[in-house]
């Protein structure tokens, strides 16, 4: 590498940096739009051209999480001053918070949908990655008749577009009573991610020299202990990468969730757009819901970023 950059290299560098900046801005623009909209007062959400500079408010998040209804008559000044700050924000938007007979506030549908999403995505990710890792280990380390055929069979479960099986699944789930249950969606997403998890983990485990385990076996460990003490730590990068992919798939899944769930086990993806239709759409609330929905994947990916970067080179075990 040349220690001194020539003028043309420097110019080229600048062009590269500028191109990267432009591309980044193009990619981040929609996300900025969503995030900014979720902090806008309602009347600024739909202005043309979009308002860039505004005073951010928290009201969309209050409206997102609490049950509210249209105001028939303006609150009296006493009522207004007696109300906590977040209730005043709702009054300002021409709505009031629905309270129970005892005067307690009630949550909107969003928080429970969000929790459903978390429960279902996390559980199915853990199951798919755990089963995938064990299966991949078996395929990687032991000879079995028809190994290639089995692997192909596992992959073939992904070949059918999910929508094709949605209706039959719905009918079967209705018979066994799994419609609109957490367990139902967890089974579905686990099955959906499993083939992918097996294939990805097999790639990673193949890269781990089997000498590592054999050394442990000779040292007096059982195969099980060797698996947990030697293989799993070495496969951590692969597990992280697989987990992120499975989590994203399960978290973002829309079609099955829409068909299979209504209330109890409904996840956020089918819920957020359903709010568009009830009354006049409040885009700030929808944006706030979308923004919160984006966070878990971003956080999860950020936490595992070191593993992912190494995992993305797909193996390449350092000696």
């Amino acid at each position: 590498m040349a220690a001194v950059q020539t003028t043309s290299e420097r110019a080229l560098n600048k062009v590269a940096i500028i191109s990267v900046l432009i591309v980044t801005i193009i990619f981040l623009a929609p996300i900025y739009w969503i995030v900014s909209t979720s902090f806008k007062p309602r009347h600024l959400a739909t202005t043309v051209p979009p308002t860039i500079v505004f005073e951010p408010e928290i009201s969309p998040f209050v409206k997102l999480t609490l049950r509210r209804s249209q105001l028939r008559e303006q609150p009296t000044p006493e009522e207004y001053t007696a109300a906590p700050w977040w209730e005043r924000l709702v009054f300002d938007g021409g709505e009031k918070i629905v309270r129970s007979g005892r005067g307690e506030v009630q949550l909107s549908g969003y928080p429970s949908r969000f929790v459903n999403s978390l429960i279902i995505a996390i559980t199915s990710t853990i199951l798919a990655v755990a089963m995938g890792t064990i299966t991949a280990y078996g395929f990687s380390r032991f000879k079995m008749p028809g190994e290639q055929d089995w692997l192909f069979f596992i992959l073939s479960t992904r070949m059918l577009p999910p929508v094709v099986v949605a209706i039959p699944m719905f009918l079967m789930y209705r018979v066994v009573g799994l419609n609109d249950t957490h367990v139902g969606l967890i089974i579905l997403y686990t099955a959906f991610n499993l083939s992918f998890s097996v294939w990805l983990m097999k790639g990673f485990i193949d890269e781990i020299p089997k000498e590592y385990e054999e050394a442990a076996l000779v040292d007096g460990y059982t195969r099980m202990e060797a698996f947990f003490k030697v293989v799993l730590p070495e496969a951590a990068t692969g597990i992280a990468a697989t987990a992120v992919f499975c989590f994203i798939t399960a978290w973002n899944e829309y079609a099955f969730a829409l068909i299979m769930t209504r209330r109890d086990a409904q996840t956020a993806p089918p819920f957020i757009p359903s709010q568009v239709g009830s009354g006049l759409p409040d885009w700030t609330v929808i944006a706030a819901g979308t923004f919160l929905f984006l966070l878990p994947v971003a956080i999860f990916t950020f936490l595992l970023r070191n593993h992912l970067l190494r995992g993305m080179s797909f193996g390449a075990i350092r000696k």
Partner: protein
Amino acid sequence: MAGISLRGISKTYGGTRALRGLDLDIEDGEFFVLLGQTGAGKTTTLRLIAGLEKPTEGEIYIDGQNVADWNAAERDVALVLQQYSLYPRLSVRGNLEFPLKSKVRNFSSDEIERRVNKAAETLQITKLLDRKVERLSGGEMQRVSIGRAIVREPRVFLMDEPLSALDAKLREALRVELKKLHTELKATFLFVTHDQVEAMSMGDKIGVLNRGKLVQVGTPAEVYHNPCNTFVARAVGSPPMNLFDARVAGGQMEIGSVKVPVGANGTALDGRDLTVGVRPENIRLENGAPVSARVFDIEDHGVVKILTMQVGEDKVHATVPAKTVVRLDETVQFGWQPEKTLLFDRQSGTNISTQ
């Protein structure tokens, strides 16, 4: 401490026969070297003894006990591999502790600490203990690998070409250390290599393996001076033994157009197709000696010179004292003492000198 016996061991992988009818006895406390080219079945032999693989046929005895049903952990052997025997995630200490932390061993933490420190001292790696394995040089890594084996004080050490990835200097140094270690530990060592110098310099006994078959077992001197066939003759000694096609007629040995006298029992071999073997150090340059040759190459090793001479189509190696004056392309005459030759049957390659 324990001896090892292999009885009629065969191992087949799919269609590949890695080992064929192997019989081998390694005595308690012996340093046994298994010498063989790549694919000869050296690693397979070690894996069978370690219990990582089951033989297709035959039995393995450790300390007189048939270990067919014992798994790797129960056999109490240590295995040092050429590579990949250290865990990159762990420090040197972590790697040394790993074999001691297994449940079957059940050592107290004081005992673990004591053994790790002792092994580190023996191998002079004490100051490396807290280093990450990834940061070690090749020689240091191999020391740690050996350390991983000795902490357990096993009955048998199995070593699969542990030195072959190292440079010549380090290899020599570690060779000496391993021998020293063997003397100190008084354990049984089975050391596998494709390097005949390693085999000759380290082994109490050498076993020569050729395509899954054990060809000869003996002390280095026996194998060197009395190889049982041309394969072994070629496999040990550097430069390798000179082998010529020859024929005995009327008390004279004809090698090409050259006639040399035969040794004592020469007449019995009349008319037979033979291969004659002469070690390079037994070749004498002498004016008036029977064979004329052109000097093709000279390697000066300080104490000796190794000459490569061209005789017709053949190349002949000779180890001569360094003070010998020769020039490239010079024509020289050489010969050897008849009793220093080995005779092999040309068809089968079997040594018939002693018959």
